[in-house]
């Protein structure tokens, strides 16, 4: 049976709109990737070049001028450790709020979220002074602590909503079966909440990886992350578009590739709670 014509028109319009939006969103990134493989001259040529002989000079130059691997290592360590630390703190908090609700649960959640409403710069001076006094400026530790703290509200919220999908009777059944709190958490909640933990962890990993404000303000040459690397190409000697693009490309590539590979698990994770 042929589909009704009205339907296919709607479908066509939707498809076209979807493609336009996708291309609009993708264009800056795509252009950035192209520019990373251009010479500085090609990068600023008018009209812009779409076809050119790609060069790897920028990559060599970036690695020579700044220690890419150090920045990458800093990014990796700070984002992974802050995510794991955050999950370790947020999961028990979300567990208690999701399954042992009190009349304050809602308020605590709202309070946590409200901390994200304050602009980060509002806390800059106190945190800077604290870090300075503790002798932690330009260390990975201070970045890990700050990333963890700034992601905690989101982590608690996401885990809270994913745990709420788990029928509480299943945890009660475990309790009746003689499980201690730890066994209940470890053997029932974690396997069932794995999807939520995974997607929360992934999101916070990306957020920490891309974090720029705190790493620019609290770190320099030693603990700087890839965000700091990009920033270092942006101004002092005038703009070098090709190198800036190359540094940006090198900074975002790992997390994009990671996200790409995790797509399937992420989707699986998000639908896990639907199984009754």
């Amino acid at each position, binding site marked *: 049976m042929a589909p009704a014509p009205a339907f296919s028109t709607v479908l066509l319009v939707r498809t076209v709109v979807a493609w336009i939006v996708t291309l609009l969103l993708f264009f800056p990134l795509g252009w950035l990737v192209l520019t990373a493989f251009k010479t500085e001259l090609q990068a600023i040529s008018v009209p812009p070049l779409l076809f050119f002989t790609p060069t790897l000079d920028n990559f060599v130059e970036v690695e020579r001028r700044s220690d890419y691997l150090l920045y990458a290592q800093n990014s990796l360590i700070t984002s992974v450790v802050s995510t794991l630390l955050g999950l370790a703190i947020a999961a028990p908090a979300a567990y208690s709020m999701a399954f042992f609700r009190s*009349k304050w649960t809602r308020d605590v959640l709202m309070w946590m979220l409200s901390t994200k409403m304050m602009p980060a710069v509002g806390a800059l001076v106190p945190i800077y002074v604290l870090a300075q006094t503790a002798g932690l400026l330009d260390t990975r530790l201070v970045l890990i602590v700050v990333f963890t703290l700034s992601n905690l509200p989101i982590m608690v919220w996401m885990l809270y909503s994913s745990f709420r999908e788990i*029928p509480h*009777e*299943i945890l*009660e*059944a*475990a*309790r*009746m*079966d*003689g*499980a*201690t709190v730890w*066994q209940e958490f470890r*053997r*029932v909640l974690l*396997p*069932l909440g794995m999807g939520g933990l995974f997607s929360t962890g992934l999101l916070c990993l990306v957020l920490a990886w891309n974090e720029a404000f705190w790493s620019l303000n609290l770190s320099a040459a030693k603990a700087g992350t890839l965000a700091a690397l990009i920033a270092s190409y942006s101004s002092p000697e005038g703009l070098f578009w090709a190198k800036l693009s190359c540094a940006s490309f090198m900074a975002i590539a790992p997390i994009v590739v990671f996200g790409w590979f995790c797509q399937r698990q992420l989707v699986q994770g998000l639908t896990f709670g639907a*199984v*009754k």
Partner: protein
Amino acid sequence: MAFIELKGVEKFFGEQRAIKGIDLNIEKGEFVVFVGPSGCGKSTLLRLIAGLETVDGGSVHLDGRDITRLPSSKRDLAMVFQSYALYPHMSVYDNMSFALMLAKVNPAVIREKVEHVAKILNLEPYLKRTPKELSGGQRQRVAIGRAIVRSPKVFLFDEPLSNLDAALRGQTRVEIAKLHRELGATTIYVTHDQVEAMTLAHRVVVLRDGRVEQVGTPLEAYYRPNSQFVAQFIGTPQMNMVAGPDVAQFQSALSVPVPPGGYLGLRPESLTLSAPGGGQLQARVELVEALGAETLVYVSTARGTQLVARKNSTQNLPHVGDTVGVQIDATAAHLFDSKGQVVAPSAR
């Protein structure tokens, strides 16, 4: 001393007093059913015994030990939930062996026990499956199996059959009764289905609004209800309850007068229909429900009192609009005072 003792148990949800001081003794091996309408507190009471809710007043004792503050995991009780609450990420075998594994029982012993129970419940072919690959009835059997495997002190059932269809519900009910006969384990069973209550229980505990209304054998609750509430809650169709001035038309048939403002209760089977002019009063037939083995006849008296009569046959049925005589079996009449408390139990 009773096996399970509840002494003045109370539970508050915020300001609301959900359980209002319940005293109850349950003997070892007994099958006790908590029954009552939605919101009467029967599930809450079960959860208090299970330790899934904290007791706000009074105490709970099991086998001579005060367990009021003991966590669920240490009470040695097994519970079957309405939603089955199987572990979705584990196989049937793992679901059933979980408690024994936590208790660090020897794996060989666990295997033997799980296989034995799986055999009893016809679950052997499904041991490797996960719960989502099972039908509702199979899941329910796994939930029951998970409870049996542990040989706990007490089995707690929280409306275990309400998610099953009617045929399966009947079948599983019979299985539960059989299991109880074989295992002889102390069982507390919560239901709002009075057929389950009547058929399974040694004793029923009728709850109303957080209080115990009556405790007794199912037949005691049926034939000698303490109150108008129990009288109407137990039995299908409901006991006919005649109130106020409408009572007068039946007074001549009764040996004891109905107290002022009181109620007269008549089970549908204690009304006999006869030809017009017979019986103590005349009524008009409004509806006839032929159910096969029995027939329910709904009639309305001249004063407009609605009554339902049960006939154990489908022969010679009256028709809608017919006038019939209604004969009351006075020995089976229940009289309640204006507060709904029984004043004269039926002579049966």
